[in-house]
């Protein structure tokens, strides 16, 4: 009996080994991962921080700025709207700003400020006489990028490298070539520790390789940025990984706008500009993009027409056409007709017709009773927002609780961001609402696309997640 099980065990082990051998042929860097880990682990983290600081200077050289220009052109060629590509580049450069790096690595909110030592990162710290910490690299990190925006995957990648990890990146097919070309040509040691799979999930022949790569290597952290389909796909594979890596899922989320009418009207022009940009930025496709709104203390008279007609005009002035689908445009018109027939106020653009649309409904959404054959998903909508006029915050809570049953929000997990246009007492209620619905952010319009460096990413501090924290206790603290 014992022998039988032994044989079976060996057989299983052999099976596990096969894909690894195959993977090493495809990805030569696999065989060096453990060796490199030792190297990175022994290296002072400040060397890597300096490297990143030096990249800031590099991007100011003609070679560096040419490289950025090539990246932008590649993004545009792959289908990115030009302004979106430029925004990505601008925000990518902010990542290398000295203050940003300081905030990311010594984030008070995450307790990382304890590692601050005269401008350097001190890995070993004494908290008190009996307790200390050593923050080290964690080992192997696998990051999956999404296709909507580059910034999150790039932020994860650089933080993982600074933390001292071997980092492997699986990108969306939109970025599968341009990002590796860009990173691999940067003048820093990270190019030897950041690897790209260059595999396409859409390709049948790559699927098995992706599965082998994720399921069979002893990853320490797997960080997935993606939509529902993508998360389902990767998490199914991750569940087969017997090393049980730490999983950081960045779920598909969305934003909600909360408006206090009299507050909004006090600074009407500025607020219109700010709300307009919040709706437009990145094609309204960010987890923080407002896709539904709520108006409190409302007055459905001419003043409301004034707000939304001017908002339409501002969006019109900054309108960038996106490639859209004929049948989706017909569905959009059907949605708008539903809203009109339900008695909602509908504002559309005289210049761009339904392509800019604001719907004002009273008490509840006009779309509650409709399904996929009538509605567009939020991912298929641009410059479109329904704002529900409600009497109080309890009504908002109730609507948001039921929101994800609506087809338009299918595959979206929850409200990530509350974009507030309100005064202090209003915001106090926004705080309470955020707590009830489990939102992660309350922002003004400057932070729809932008993240504050001290922010947690959907409750995760990525730098902390990419490190291993060793507690040193008792008399051992003396030896730190």
């Amino acid at each position: 009996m014992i022998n039988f099980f032994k044989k079976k065990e060996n057989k299983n082990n052999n099976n596990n080994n096969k894909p690894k051998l195959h993977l090493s042929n495809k990805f030569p860097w696999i065989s060096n991962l453990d060796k490199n880990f030792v190297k990175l682990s022994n290296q002072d983290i400040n060397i890597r921080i300096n490297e990143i600081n030096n990249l800031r200077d590099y991007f100011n050289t003609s070679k560096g700025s040419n490289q950025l220009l090539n990246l932008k052109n590649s993004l545009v060629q792959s289908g990115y709207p030009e302004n979106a590509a430029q925004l990505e580049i601008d925000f990518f450069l902010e990542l290398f700003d000295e203050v940003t790096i300081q905030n990311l690595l010594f984030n008070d909110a995450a307790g990382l400020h304890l590692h601050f030592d005269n401008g350097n990162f001190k890995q070993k710290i004494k908290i008190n006489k009996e307790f200390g910490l050593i923050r080290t690299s964690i080992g192997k990190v696998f990051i999956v990028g999404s296709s909507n925006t580059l910034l999150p995957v790039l932020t994860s990648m650089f933080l993982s490298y600074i933390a001292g990890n071997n980092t492997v990146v699986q990108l969306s097919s939109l970025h599968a070539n341009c990002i590796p070309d860009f990173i691999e040509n940067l003048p820093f040691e990270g190019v030897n520790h950041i690897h790209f799979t260059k595999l396409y999930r859409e390709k049948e022949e790559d699927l098995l390789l992706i599965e082998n790569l994720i399921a069979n290597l002893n990853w320490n952290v797997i960080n997935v940025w993606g939509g529902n389909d993508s998360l389902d796909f990767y998490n199914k594979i991750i569940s087969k990984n017997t090393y049980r890596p730490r999983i950081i899922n960045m779920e598909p989320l969305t934003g909600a706008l909360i408006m206090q009418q009299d507050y909004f009207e006090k600074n009407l022009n500025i607020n219109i500009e700010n709300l307009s940009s919040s709706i437009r930025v990145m094609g309204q496709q960010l987890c923080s993009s407002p896709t539904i709104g709520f108006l409190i203390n409302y007055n459905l008279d001419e003043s409301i027409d004034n707000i939304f007609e001017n908002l339409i005009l501002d969006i019109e002035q900054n309108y960038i056409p996106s490639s859209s689908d004929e049948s989706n445009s017909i569905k959009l018109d059907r949605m708008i007709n539903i809203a009109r027939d339900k008695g909602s106020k509908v504002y559309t653009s005289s210049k761009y017709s339904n392509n800019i649309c604001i719907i004002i409904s009273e008490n509840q959404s006009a779309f509650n009773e409709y399904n996929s054959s009538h509605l567009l998903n939020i991912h298929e909508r641009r410059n479109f927002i329904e704002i529900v006029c409600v009497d109080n915050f309890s009504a908002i809570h109730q609507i948001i609780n039921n929101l994800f049953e609506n087809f338009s929000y299918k595959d979206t997990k929850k409200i990530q961001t509350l974009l507030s246009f309100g005064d202090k007492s209003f915001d106090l209620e926004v705080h309470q609402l955020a707590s009830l619905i489990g939102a992660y952010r309350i922002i003004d319009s400057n932070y729809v696309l932008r993240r504050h460096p001290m922010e947690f990413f959907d409750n995760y501090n990525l730098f902390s997640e990419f490190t291993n924290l060793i507690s040193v206790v008792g008399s051992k603290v003396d030896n730190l």
Partner: protein
Amino acid sequence: MNNRPFDGNGIPSDLNESSSHLYNDEYFQLLKKTLTTNNVVNNSREETKNLQKSLLYPYLEFFIRNDKNDFYKKLFFNRGIAKDQNGSLKDNLELVDLIKLRVHSDDLRADGQQQRLIHQDIDKEEGMSFMSSGTTVGTNGPVNVFRSNISLSLSRLTNGNLIDWSIGKKVNEGETLFHMAPEMTNFLAFAAIGSDFLRDRGLGVRFGAKVNKGPADSTIWQRLGPDIKQMKSFFKDNNPTKYFIASGVGLYKMFMEPKGIKKLMMKLALSAPPVYLGDNGVLMIGGGLKRLPSSITSLDQIVKNTGDFILAGDNKNAPPAPVIDMLGLTESLNVFIGVPTDPHSDDPWIKFPHPLTYTALLKSPFDLTPVENPKEGEEYLLFYVNLMTLDYVEAIIPGDFVKASKDMDSINTALGKRNISQNGFIYSRRAEQSEGFKIREGCG
């Protein structure tokens, strides 16, 4: 003879319109008078515009007067053509304002039409429901449209106007073969309305297909087979006026698909091809390209290939029968009719609406604004309003792209010159689902 081939299927021959509660309605009486005084298809384009304009308020008021649960009173207000929810229409409405009442075909799928119907209880209202084939994926069922007998009685007049105009004479004699099964007249609008009209005009009607027995879970389309006996009797009939009404698929399966021994067997069974339609014979076709091989990209390919087998005469030296192509939609009480065309001609197949079908070409699915002066050959989205449909506001965007035709007052056809009462269009394609740039799949 006339009723036998229907075998109890389809639209009843006696529509008993006077029993409808709408019979005495002033708008119905106005339409009836308009349609029986003379053939409005002979109107000039200006006269048609004036006629449509004169019907605009009576048409809208008809729905306010006969409203069910205030549906239209609210709709007209919400869509911006009424001053209030009590049915006070705005002043100075124009025909282009009808675009505000648009219904997309997809809104008529499943029970979508129900709320729009003016009838209190359609089970009590005499009429029939017509359905599309329901083959479009990602929808919640076929387009399903109820038509009351009183609306169908108007369709006999309007579709009659169109066919008389296209053929160039009052169609009231001859034989017809519908290349479909009589059971299909129970739900297929084109089959039901076309055959009903021809029977009503006194023509002999035959059906060239039948529904065979088959597994319980099979569809009527899967059990459809030829009715050789009916076809043969039509082909043998010596009447000098025969109308052969077929779909592109029917013609393909009969004349293009059979090869070798199959072709020989077809010839033995039917004594055709060639098909002799008599000196006044016409081939009428309709339908799309569904169920045709991918090598067939337009119906005129089929017509060109079969033209020499379907002849207007009684011998092999007779010329090819002229072809009239029709666009029939479940969601339209009227067809859009073509003019007689030589099957070998390269002339575009222009479809013409009835003068009571207000037609507008819209810029695009992204901008549904009616275009005032469409440019010849450019593609637009079709929109029409059937002013003679009484059951609901039939203001439809069917999701079809058409190309604008040349501005003209008359057109030369294979059977002579025809007056143009309203600009026609050339069918182009269905709206497509293309993969745009998807900037979003996840988070950030």
